[in-house]
């Protein structure tokens, strides 16, 4: 037990040191959603009228609407990026060092996942603080309630990245996956437009958005920001976490998974 937590702490510490060492990554992680908030949302506000819908109790500005989606964007990019570092780690050998530690492999992967998720959540909180300074704020208790929601969503997206990293051998392939995973996941979700708006455009798009686990991550965050729980979204996010996590453990299993295949 003590050993397992020593490893968890060490992996998280390493992840944090590496993250702080890559200043560019922090800046990019914060600037990306800010650009959307300040530039994109301002332009879009005129084009898109939003009616009253839960959890909002009044008409809202478009900026207010997309803040949870942009939190999701941070988690999504970060989840993919930390698994990008996993692919890189494996090529550089550090992953070997990790996987030869005398601990259950699923635990080592879980440590990696939790460490990456903590970093994601901290970034999202920094973004929320800057958004508040910009004038898009939520009730004070929302900032507390959102922490577990962010963490669960970060775990789900991190597990997705982990799963992908176990099936992808080279960095070049990973760039492709970013385009085929990140963009569809983000645009076909409730991050930028509410579901009813999608339904007006196309019932098919509406259905895809409604099924996208990323939508549920965003909705979980959106409701949590107003101190409310979105039970269906929570269930979907936890279910997706279980599926992605199990697939990642399978992918990294020495006997069956992709590590048994040579580059």
């Amino acid at each position, binding site marked *: 037990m*003590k*050993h397992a937590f*020593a*490893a968890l*702490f*060490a*992996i998280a*510490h*390493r992840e944090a*040191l*590496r993250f702080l*060492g890559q200043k560019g990554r922090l800046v990019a992680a914060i600037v990306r959603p800010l650009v959307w908030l300040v530039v994109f949302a301002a332009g879009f506000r005129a084009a898109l009228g939003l009616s009253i819908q839960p959890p909002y109790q009044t008409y809202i500005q478009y900026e207010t609407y997309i803040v949870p989606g942009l939190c999701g964007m941070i988690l999504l990019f970060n989840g993919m990026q930390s698994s990008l570092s996993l692919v890189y780690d494996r*090529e*550089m*050998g*550090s992953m*070997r*060092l*990790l*996987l*030869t*530690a*005398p*601990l*259950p492999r699923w635990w080592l992967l879980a440590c990696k996942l939790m460490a990456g998720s903590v970093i994601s959540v901290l970034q999202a909180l920094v973004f929320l603080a800057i958004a508040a300074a910009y004038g898009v704020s939520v009730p004070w208790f929302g900032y507390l309630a959102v922490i577990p929601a962010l963490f669960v969503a970060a775990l789900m997206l991190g597990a997705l990245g982990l799963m992908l990293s176990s099936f992808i051998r080279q960095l070049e392939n990973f760039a492709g996956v970013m385009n085929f995973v990140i963009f569809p996941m983000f645009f076909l979700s409730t991050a930028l437009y509410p579901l009813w708006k999608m339904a007006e455009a196309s019932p098919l798009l509406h259905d895809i958005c409604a099924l996208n686990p990323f939508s549920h991550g965003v909705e979980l965050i959106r409701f949590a920001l107003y101190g409310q729980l979105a039970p269906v979204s929570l269930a979907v996010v936890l279910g997706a976490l279980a599926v992605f996590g199990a697939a990642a453990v399978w992918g990294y299993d*020495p*006997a069956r998974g992709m*590590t*048994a*295949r*040579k580059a």
Partner: protein
Amino acid sequence: MSGLKVTGLSHAWGAKKALDDVSLSVEPGRFCALLGPNGAGKSTLFGLLTGLFASRTGRIEIAGQDMARHPRAALARMGVVFQQPTIDLDLTVRRNMLYFAALHGITGAEAGRRADAALDRLGMAERAGEVARALNGGHRRRMEIARALMHGPSVLLLDEPTVGLDAGTRRALTDHVHGLADEGLTVLWATHLTDEVHPGDRLVVLHRGRVLADGLAGEIGGADLTERFLEMTGAAA
């Protein structure tokens, strides 16, 4: 009890057979050189020995622990130096050591003590505070060997540890690890360079996934191990 025992191990990458019924056994405290040209299957064997992937046929025992049934017990008794560097270049040498220690359940003052002792042993004590990126290739390797010994393993596996190093550094590292075997550590040293093998070493020649020779290096090699090695692997080609 054996330091390291491999029985009937085979492994294939798709249709290509990388290891074909490989058996070898190294007694405790022996230096065993695993000699083979590139593509002989050395890295596949190391992948299996370290549990990165598993094979359905054959058996691996590390210090008496079955790799398939008790992988964690086997890993705990094993120190590994991989062919590729496994260092966090942006962290200090000491921080690299402590990270590894924690993965093996060693923390706090004990971890610090062991890191210092291991670095001191490899003549790296004064570099503990340096960022790993500042080290040259030889020192990086030394750090990795020091790190692999931190948890007090009884078996040390090294996969072509001298790749990319100059002749002097190569000699120094080879001699040092021979010294470790004299102190009682079981060593498996994979290489394709015959000059790293001492006449008194145990020698296993691997070629195209098969064991071509297994015995005392001096006896297998005769007067000139290099010639003999080229002859053996050339003839089999």
